[in-house]
């Protein structure tokens, strides 16, 4: 199962907006009802009855969402066979990518590290959408597997605060037409 359709961030944002609106509505209703006079025994009886269902709902949603998420973990596994390894090194305030371009449709393994402080390797596609990120940490190699199917100039931005020029620490990565 995969969650990689459309632009996930937009879907995430919309789900959050709906949930936030529903929560806000519930709080408005409770605030309006706060002025009425209802016996606490009645509130107890109905409230505790409802609470069990509320807990059950949250548990079901949790098992479902967390369960599905475990099938879509971004962590690379196994060796790099069949993948083009791109060695990524971050430093104050540059990115080095070797090689700097691959053909469209290539299964890429980004092997990410850093030479000085922690950086964040954030990969944005040619339309500026954040595809994903991985940390660049001195002394460690984080491996990110992606299949880059769309041709274009991808942009790398630093996604971990790394000092003075953090916000301008950028580079590009080209995916050529296969």
């Amino acid at each position, binding site marked *: 199962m995969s*969650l990689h359709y459309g632009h996930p*961030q*937009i879907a*995430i*944002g919309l789900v*959050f*907006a709906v*949930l936030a609106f529903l*929560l*806000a509505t519930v*709080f408005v209703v*409770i605030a309006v*009802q*706060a*002025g*009425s*006079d209802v016996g606490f025994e*009645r*509130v*107890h009886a109905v409230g505790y009855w409802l*609470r069990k269902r*509320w*807990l059950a709902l*949250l548990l079901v949603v*949790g098992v479902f*969402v*967390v369960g599905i*998420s475990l099938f879509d*973990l*971004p*962590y*690379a596994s196994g060796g790099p066979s069949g993948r083009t390894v791109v060695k990524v090194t971050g430093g*104050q*305030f540059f990115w080095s990518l070797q090689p700097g371009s691959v053909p469209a449709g290539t299964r890429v393994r980004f092997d990410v590290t850093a030479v*000085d*402080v*922690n950086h*964040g390797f*954030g990969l*944005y596609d040619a339309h*500026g959408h*954040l*595809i*994903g*990120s991985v*940390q660049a*940490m*001195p*002394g460690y190699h984080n*491996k*990110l597997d992606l299949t880059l199917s769309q041709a274009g100039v991808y942009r790398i*931005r*630093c*996604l*971990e*605060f790394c*000092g*003075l020029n*953090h*916000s301008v620490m950028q580079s590009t990565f080209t995916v050529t037409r296969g």
Partner: protein
Amino acid sequence: MASIIASAPSALHPRAAAFTEEARQIERRIGLLFAATGVVLILLMGVLGLIMRLTQATVIDLSPAWFYRLMTLHGMGMITGALIAAMGALWYVLHESVPLRAGHMLASYTLTVSGAVGVLVATLVGGFGAGWTFLPPLSFFPAGQWPTWSESVFFVGMLMVGSGFFVYCIDVLRQTTSTYGGLTGALGWRFLRGREPEAPPAPVIAATVIAFDGLLAMSAGMTIGLGLLGRTYDSRVGFDLLASKNLVYFFGHTIANLLIYLAAGAVYVLLPRYAGRAYEVTKVFVAGWGVALVLILTVYSHHLYMDFVQPRWAEITSEISSYASALPVAVITIYSMTMLVWGSRYRWTLASTLLYLGLVGWAIGGTGAVIDSIIPFNFRLHNTVWVVAHFHTYLMLTVVVWLLAFIAHVLERDAGETSSKTARIWTMALLLVGGFGLTGTWFVEGTLGIPRRYAIQPPGTVGYSLVGSIFAMVFALGVLACVTQLVLLGQTAWGRRHYVLVDHMDSWTGSHYQARVARADGERTAVEAAPWAPGDVPLASPGQLCIGAAACVVALASFFPQVVKASETSIRYHHLDHAGHFFLGLMFGLVIGSLPAVSRQLGDRSALGLATVIVAPAGMMLVMVPRFYEPLERHPFEHSLYHLAMAAFGLVAGLAASRLGRVGGRMSAFLSVGMVLLFAAAMKGG
């Protein structure tokens, strides 16, 4: 002839009199001192936040160097300000049922405020700008922006803030556990198992969990802080960056999380006073806080989701914990609060409205946080401003408004009235529109992948910062309106400090009027602490003393020449060996200090014990900086003495811990050893 017919209308719900104690002067003073100090700090840091947002909107032309100085100060200052205020609020409600000591609280205040001053100097004067999370080794790569001394001052400041909270937590833990029958009693677990007919009050359970988790978090923070402080003195001190990152986020995330729980602990007492319904501690409540005790500690790893080298089990455990930790909040705390409010003829005052608003912020901000804690979602949101959005939602619209609510509550009670309805409506409108507008802008930016902590925003996104800045100013107006009402309430409360208003009826004319009646001199009797007993020691029984002695014998192995020689092969192993020496001394100190005859001789020296139990492990870790120990390595005898000094630090820490009672002593001894072990794990240079 006139007769009193009732007290003048109080700011509280009429039914609240049945379960509301009159606050004592010490509670009001300590509560207000902490809350006012914290809120002043929060307001100043809020101004810095606005300046940063206006800089991102290119309205203000601030250099990146200054942006990151302000960002570092804003983060550390906000956490410190909220921590001070929330500590005061919880102390205010907890002191009703637990004999907390004002002296310890003032020591905690002095340390925390001094630490905040240190951070202020390090950032504004020294130019330190590595962020409040100071992710190693960024502090030591300043790109020419700050001198070494500013790093030292920052870490000393951070350690002082940590020590202040440490003192608070130890006192809270010691007093709740000694008042309610040990740790299991104070957590309500004896009630849960049917061994006690009644559970402790809600704030007692909350405070015990907070103190327990707070001590663990602060120990991790102080360990990495000491390592970093050592590095400012000697550049050969090195770090395992993954282990350091774990320590930093275990400390940082947990403390930020505990701010909400600290404030919530007070809200359990305050909100019912406006609903006229006492908060009921049920077995579900106790179980929920029991679950929270563990989950608060295990969720932090979601900050390391994008560190793919972090063990997979840690990432998955964190995802499950992050979701699960929302359940007690959603199903118990927020839900039960709304049950209290529903149909209660809730008394809407400045304080009670802010209390209710805080629930909304927690629910909505928490939802954003839970979404971010799902790994595939985090893959696309990690370190974007989505993170900024969700934590500002529950820090601005929950913690800060609850802290303002706390001050309003104290002043409303003393003034016997609240602010005008019009003022309250305007204030709430400004806070709601400004607050959710600001965080909403960040949520939108987060979905667009805009990174956080950018002094210069990506091209084409400056407009969002401008809109956010406008909402931030609206929120600031709301806070200003709120503070103005607090000042006015404070003036009224001050004017009425010697009298109360009561409703009178003239028996001749039958007319009603309010008259001044002098306040009663007597105060509610404070809960008395049990007198110090020599037997209140960490190792109380002969069996426990034997276990302590056995641990000493095992720890002697750390002095065996073969072990010492083997440990020389790596810095980590060598530090581990030092930890063994420290452990030997600590257990020996605990055993000696727990012997009845010695305990009687040492007496109740809890203040000295508390100070020593913080300083001794810190000293032990600092002398592991190469520049300190290298001169001693030239001669084997000196080197042996150095190892003995490690055990001596442990001995002093053990004796000190034996002065902190059963639970406090065991906990502080455990933390001392834990700190030196974590130090060994995180440091690899030197």
